[in-house]
């Protein structure tokens, strides 16, 4: 099977002003992984461990609940079609024990939802050479209309409601859900000390909303806790990561820290009076990593972000067969409304998959990169222009 990649650049007037055509060079190991999992019917007792688009490990299989209401065997591995931008895609499956729990089928948990932009055709700005083990675009251009933030600046924060202490003898921090893509370069927590704690360690690692999992530490660093203040007004201590970590929209990560000697204290928002503290605090994306409903984590996130482009729907259709050939198309439109030029040097395909079945839980949504290509020479999409990208897989006997 060969795949033709066609790219048209369309100006504001709807005219095609540039056309590129090339054969796809670079289907990756992860396409073979998903096909293997399907062909060999890999079960949850011995799942495959694969890298997803976060750069972290996930486990995958085909297993669903053995029976029950809502049992559809519909773990959508290899899903490439998706709506555009932030539109939701259901990736996964939830057991429905009885007709009374129908709600689980029609109102699925957060773990099974992904934004449409992360599924289907992707574009990026890196010209790094492709390899069979590429697990994501090297420098993905995210969905949106924003101009770039080239120097590290605040990308997101939860600063209000400093009410309570949290001792860092165990790992403690935030299950953080980004609402947009950015490259995290440093994290600030509000800290103080009670003695001489020594180094405090921070980790940024992959996670899920629920279910068993395999975690991957994406970055870790330390800061000297002996230089923290011993009381109010405390210090927003900055942990500078050794390299930027790309956070993806709607894909949770755990950002937490630890100091084993019990002398380092994190300040947090803690509220039991109204029930769900972090909902009251209006910061639902900063829930605590321990799952407590009463805590929200005070955190200040810094980083950079690239210029954004709007992701349209990714359409998979048009299968035709006329001996000796059969083919179909995968298409997506990208519209530049960012106010400046966007240079495209790579494109690829992300395919959604739900990870390992566990008990009544059929896996969180995720995606793998099944194809990545470098586009050369650079393709510059001006403000107001549209990029139409079409993959055409074709078989010939």
């Amino acid at each position, binding site marked *: *099977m060969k795949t033709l990649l066609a790219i048209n650049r369309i100006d504001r007037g709807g005219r095609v002003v540039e056309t590129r055509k090339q054969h796809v060079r670079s289907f990756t190991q992860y*396409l073979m992984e998903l096909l293997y999992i399907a062909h060999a*019917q890999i079960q949850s007792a011995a799942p495959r461990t694969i890298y997803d688009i976060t750069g972290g490990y996930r486990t995958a299989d085909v297993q669903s609940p053995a029976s029950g209401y809502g049992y559809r065997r519909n773990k959508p591995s290899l899903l490439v079609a998706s709506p555009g931008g932030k539109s939701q895609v259901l990736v996964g499956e939830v057991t429905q024990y009885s007709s009374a729990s129908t709600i689980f089928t029609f109102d699925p948990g957060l773990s099974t939802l992904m934004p449409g932009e992360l599924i289907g055709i992707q574009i990026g700005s890196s010209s790094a050479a492709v390899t069979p083990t590429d697990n994501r675009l090297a420098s993905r251009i995210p969905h949106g209309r924003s101009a770039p933030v080239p120097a590290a600046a605040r990308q997101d924060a939860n600063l209000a409601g400093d009410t309570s202490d949290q001792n860092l003898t165990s790992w403690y921090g935030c299950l953080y859900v980004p609402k947009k893509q950015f490259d995290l370069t440093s994290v600030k927590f509000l800290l103080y000390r009670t003695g001489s704690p020594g180094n405090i360690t921070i980790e940024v690692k992959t996670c899920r909303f629920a279910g068993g999992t395999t975690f991957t530490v994406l970055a870790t660093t330390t800061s000297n806790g002996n230089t923290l203040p011993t009381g109010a007004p405390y210090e927003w201590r900055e942990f500078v990561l050794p390299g930027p970590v790309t956070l993806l929209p709607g894909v949770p990560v755990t950002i937490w820290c630890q100091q084993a000697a019990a002398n380092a204290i994190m300040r947090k928002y803690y509220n039991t009076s109204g029930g769900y503290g972090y909902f009251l605090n209006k910061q639902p994306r900063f829930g605590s990593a321990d799952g407590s409903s009463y805590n929200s984590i005070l955190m200040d996130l810094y980083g950079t972000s690239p210029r954004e482009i709007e992701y349209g729907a990714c359409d998979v259709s048009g299968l035709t067969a006329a001996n000796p050939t059969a083919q179909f198309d995968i298409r997506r439109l990208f519209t530049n409304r960012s106010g400046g030029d966007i240079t495209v040097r790579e494109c690829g395909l992300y395919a959604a998959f739900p990870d390992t079945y566990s008990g009544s839980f059929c896996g969180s949504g995720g995606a793998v990169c099944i194809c990545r290509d470098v586009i050369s020479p650079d393709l510059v999409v001006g403000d107001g222009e549209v990029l139409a990208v079409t993959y055409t*897989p074709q078989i010939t006997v």
Partner: protein
Amino acid sequence: MSDKRATGRHRIEARGVASPLNPDHVVLEPGEIGAVLEWTVRRADGTVRERVAKKAESYVRQFLDLLLVQMTGVPEVCPAQITDTSGALRDVAASSLNFDCAAVANIDAYGVVVGIGAGAPTIGDYALQSKIAHGVGAGQLQYGGVAFGMPTSNLSASHFTVTRDFANGSGNPIVVYEIGLYVKGDMPVLLSNSQNRANDSASNPTVQYFCTIRDVIGTGITILNGETLTVNYRQECVV
């Protein structure tokens, strides 16, 4: 990649027909997704009489049909129609059963299959021209279980392997002219008084079989009585 199952069990000695190629020498073009077909014929004493590797030529339409069903996430309420190995159009929806070819021994309905039809492949082939049935009767071969080599990659390629043995206990030589891969497709059953699939348990799936690859071996592969044919399909993509 050679068939490792014989290593250490028998002295492998090639005294018959042998291709100069092994699967690592069969080169797909950059960007291509394809299969490398390798077959080995062993005598009753385990020695190799014939080993050949070649580029498989013939993904057929149903491979793309099932790929499109999965990539689109076709739901049960508006399934796609795909031709099964009997020639009938079947309703198929996205499912974790699609592409399943992990057939156990004695099952010739799916997995790697072999036949005696020599007609040139066409894109619309939905079955082998004349499949050899499982058994020890005249013209039959004993189908082993389908085994898999797990995905691996090197600097330029990624692949996994689907393998099956066919033992000739029929009493006479059998010549194989065609080799194919049959996989499962999941057919939803909907009921007017239920919001579930009717076939809603793992023990009660409603599946049919679909041909995704058909290759024709022009010169045929002769399997004498007592000999075993091993077929490896190595599905591969190349950067």
